């Protein structure tokens, strides 16, 4: 079984090298197929590993070599495949493969085709390292690696300066979180002497509770950066500058869930914490609400989905915070299906519109883009939690865990967020696909359904988004919760009672009723008689606040960015040039002043020299006498 781990991890790296080197001379289609097939191979291998683990096989370890060894720091370059990492592997390679196929169609006319695939493969490699690393340092290596690939792919169209800025913003904000992660690693070294999972999680040594709290808080700071939570979430909407498949793979399905993976992986540490666990829950909750509200007033199709992602990640953090780690993983899975689907669908729309991303200038696309329309609709229904679709089960589970694990307040805030989610998603759907076309004539002629390489992944994902809920049927339908029984060896859930039958029925009934109302209202407002002027006309202060994204960027700019730039100028031109360097130069001047005076001594008059010589000899003799 050991052989499958390197196959899973390194096949994408092979793909990276092939598409990097072959970019010049291989035809695009072959390049795309080669690069996708490495991911497919990786997927097959992870399925084999899954079968092994599922049949009760042992956790597979692979220690390649000793990476860093200095003093008491010893880090192995080692990987493991246990239930949790195998689960993540399947999501990454499975969804990754579909998105690769999709990209062959989406990027076909881009000059950077080879470069794109090599970056995408590199990303999959890094992401696999992240989830299979058997200690936190290897995990950190993957963690930084995916951040790097994200940077490269956001700034993929490098001629645009704004895109480059967005890429840098993402990288730097991630780095702020990474510092937290790094500090957590140092704390682990201090307290446990190692970062290997198997020692930390099985260690019986008495590590103080406060230390654990600190470690967990620091890990969470890392997770905040990577998974785009408040206050480090503003990079994710900007990250939409990258090509759409990138948004689907990195900024929806996989990389941004790395923070959830990190905390689920460390669940044994988190389960006994109070401050850290509460921080996770409340920050998740706040992010879920604020991001959902912001999404209400955005007009860029990808930005809406980005804020939606931030909000859904917030849901997952709430689940982690109440101690329902497998529930969070369940939502990671279903979210990967429907959010990848939605992003790819939006990519298909943008493809058809020739680059237009503003939904105010779309409308009525359902007539031309039939497959995209249906799959996008299914995705919308899944994310809004229409009963029996995947999103319903995972969200429902988060709501019930929040209710039974924490209380009515968190529950109702999450429920309200679900309502908001439904509103912005249906606004998006109706504005895009229904009503009349509001774009230019040229765009209207250009409208066409995307090629098969793009629609097939859409269809596959929409099937998954519909039936993905089977993985975790609620107790109303079945007693066999697949994900939680599969992951229970690795993630240690808090014991939270199962929801009662009445609770389940109420949720189903209420959600059907509420969704029906929302769909009706949205249809009326955004499909039948929509005009963008209407919306702009009645801007009150709240909607202004929302459409300006709560002014987060402006505030950060004011508090952090500009002061640092000013300090930089100040330090350089004032302190460094005028103060420190002046002192240095002054001492130089002093010396030359002194030497000018001293030079007068060397006047060339012999008597002075003689006098000096005599004085010198005398004082020398005196000195010798004294010593």
């Amino acid at each position: 079984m050991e052989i499958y781990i390197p196959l899973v991890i390194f096949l994408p790296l092979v793909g990276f090298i092939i598409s990097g080197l072959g970019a010049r001379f291989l035809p695009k289609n072959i390049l795309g197929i080669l690069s996708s097939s490495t991911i497919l191979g990786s997927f097959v291998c992870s399925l084999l590993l899954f079968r092994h683990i599922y049949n009760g096989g042992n956790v597979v370890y692979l220690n390649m070599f000793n990476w860093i060894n200095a003093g008491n720091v010893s880090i192995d370059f080692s990987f493991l495949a246990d239930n949790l990492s195998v689960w993540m592997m399947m999501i990454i390679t499975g969804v990754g493969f579909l998105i690769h196929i999709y990209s062959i169609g989406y990027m076909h006319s881009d000059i950077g085709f080879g470069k794109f695939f090599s970056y995408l493969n590199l990303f999959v490699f890094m992401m696999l390292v992240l989830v299979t690393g058997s200690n936190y340092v290897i995990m950190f290596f993957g963690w930084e690696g995916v951040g790097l690939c994200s940077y490269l792919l956001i700034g993929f169209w490098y001629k645009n300066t704004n895109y480059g800025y967005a890429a840098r913003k993402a990288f730097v904000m991630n780095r702020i979180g990474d510092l937290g992660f790094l500090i957590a690693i140092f704390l682990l070294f201090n307290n446990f002497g190692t970062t290997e999972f198997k020692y930390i999680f099985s260690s019986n040594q008495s590590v103080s509770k406060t230390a654990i709290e600190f470690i967990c808080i620091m890990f969470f700071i890392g997770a905040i950066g990577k998974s785009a939570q408040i206050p480090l979430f503003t990079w994710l909407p900007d990250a939409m500058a990258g090509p759409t498949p990138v948004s689907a793979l990195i900024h929806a399905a996989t990389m941004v869930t790395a923070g959830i993976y990190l905390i689920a992986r460390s669940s044994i540490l988190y389960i006994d914490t109070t401050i850290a666990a509460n921080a996770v829950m409340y920050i998740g909750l706040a992010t879920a609400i604020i991001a959902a509200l912001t999404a209400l007033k955005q007009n860029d199709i990808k930005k809406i989905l980005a804020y939606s992602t931030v909000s859904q990640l917030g849901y997952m953090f709430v689940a982690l915070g109440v101690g329902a780690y497998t529930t969070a993983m369940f939502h990671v899975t279903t979210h990967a299906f429907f959010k990848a689907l939605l992003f790819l669908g939006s990519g298909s729309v943008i493809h058809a519109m020739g680059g237009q991303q503003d939904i105010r200038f779309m409308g009525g696309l359902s007539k031309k883009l039939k497959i995209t329309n249906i799959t996008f609709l299914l995705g919308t229904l899944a994310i809004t939690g229409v009963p029996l679709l995947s999103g319903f089960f995972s969200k429902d589970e988060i709501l019930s865990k929040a209710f039974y694990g924490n209380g009515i307040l968190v529950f109702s805030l999450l429920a309200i967020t679900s309502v908001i989610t439904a509103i912005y998603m249906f606004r998006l759907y109706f504005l895009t696909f229904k009503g009349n076309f509001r774009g230019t004539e040229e765009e209207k002629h250009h409208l066409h359904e995307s090629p098969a390489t793009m629609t097939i992944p859409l269809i596959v994902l929409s099937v998954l988004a519909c039936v993905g809920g089977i993985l975790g049927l609620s107790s109303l339908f079945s007693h066999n919760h697949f994900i939680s029984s599969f992951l229970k060896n690795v993630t240690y859930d808090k014991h939270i009672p199962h929801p009662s039958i009445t609770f389940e029925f109420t949720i189903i009934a209420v959600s059907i009723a509420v969704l029906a109302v929302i769909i009706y209202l949205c249809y009326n407002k955004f499909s039948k008689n929509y005009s963008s002027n209407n919306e702009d006309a009645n801007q009150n202060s709240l909607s202004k606040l929302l459409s300006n994204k709560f002014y987060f960027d402006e505030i950060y700019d004011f508090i952090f960015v500009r002061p640092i730039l000013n300090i930089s100028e100040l330090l350089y031109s004032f302190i460094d040039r005028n103060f420190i360097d002046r002192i240095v130069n002054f001492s130089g001047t002093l010396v030359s002043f002194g030497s000018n005076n001293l030079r007068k001594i060397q006047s060339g008059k012999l008597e002075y020299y003689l006098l000096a010589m005599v004085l010198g000899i005398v004082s020398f003799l005196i000195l010798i006498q004294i010593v």
Partner: protein
Amino acid sequence: MILLILPVIGAILTYFFKEKTARITALIFSIVQLFINGYLLSQFDFASAAIQFYSSYKWFDEIGLYFTTGIDGIAMVMIILTNIASFLIILSSWDNNHKNINSFLSLILIMQSSLNGVFLAYNGLLFYIFWELALIPIYFITGMWGGENRIKITFKFFIYTFLGSLLMLLAFIYIYINSNGINTFEWENFINLELSKNESTILLWAFFIAFAVKMPIFPFHTWQPDTYSVAPAQGTMLLSGIMLKMGIFGMIRWMLPLAKNTCSCNLNIFMILAIAGIIYAAIIAIMQNDIKRVIAWSSISHVGLIAAGILTLSKNGIQGGILQMFNHGINIIGLFMAAEIIERRLNTRSLKEMGGLALYAKGFAFLFMIVLLGSVAVPLTNGFTGEFLLLNSVFNYSTIWGVLSGLTIIFCAVYMLRVYQLAMFGESYHKENIFSKLSWSEYVTLGIIACIVIVTGVFPNLLLNISDISVNSILTIIE
């Protein structure tokens, strides 16, 4: 010994040749030097704490000056760096259009010899002689082939570092006088002396200032950005890639063992300066417009971290410091090479007048990116392992200082990516493509550097193992 003499012969020969022959001779000598270094490495006993290849000849034994040389693990890492770096620097000058290229190259070779000497010397006075000897070629290189204001800036640099080293000379003489009649400057005698606390403290400060100027550590750094930006590319590479390591190496070899009997409060002051420098320089680097200046300031910031790690006096810190010295040397030569490649084509170092270069030079963009990532310390590049060990040691020493030094990983990303963005991405500043393809020597230089960045990033133990035992013995001396 051969390591010292060979470059001098090379230098003399090179001087008498013209143009192309001179280039080839210099290159051949630096390659041979590399092979000798490789042979020494193969003969080197990793498990031994002793000084290996030890030799000692009488020179002026009346004043205790012996020609004592030897290699321990730490010196081994340093001479590997010196010889690889010198080879790269000579290679990188292949396309230079300097006048009198023969004397330029022979000065570099003399420099290589004296730098090797600094790392090999086991006699205080000999160390000092090589230390000063290294100053002379770089003075001429900067003074003769430098840019604007070169005379003034070089002079300042010279005076600055010269005054620093005078303090070191005084410190050596002081120990020599107090060596109880064993009239010698030998390292082995020096470390066995028991000096009083006050004496140690004064010596410590004298050494520190000498070494701090060279590295440079805040606030002794004001010569550095000017000198780095005005010196010709190869001069800057010599200064930043190898020469500043003399200071750090001096701290490990001479300052800490000789002045061991001192209050740790002094070391704490040094650490505060080093950490202040990390942040100070990083913040300044964010707004610089001259590409060489950004790199220069980044160097102050990185070196501050190395110094802070070493001053924790922990195994992790010193090992990390030695590793990072090597890595920093390689990375910064790569960065200055990239800057030089751009300057050769655009005739400017101003970031505002670049932009969009990635469009014209994909291979260059790729290699530049790898070197840059090494500097930003992304895992699996060389910078990561070094910085990881250093930050870990500083964090163990003091939580607050660890966190403050940790800010470097954020700031470094800010200024380095800014450079890359402004130079390589965005709209092209120039209307037509004036960025010609890289020549073979440019490709090879950057390519080798990129390979080293990755290899030492994946296998840092290759270097860590060399110095492992020697660091232990240094630590036992200090204890």
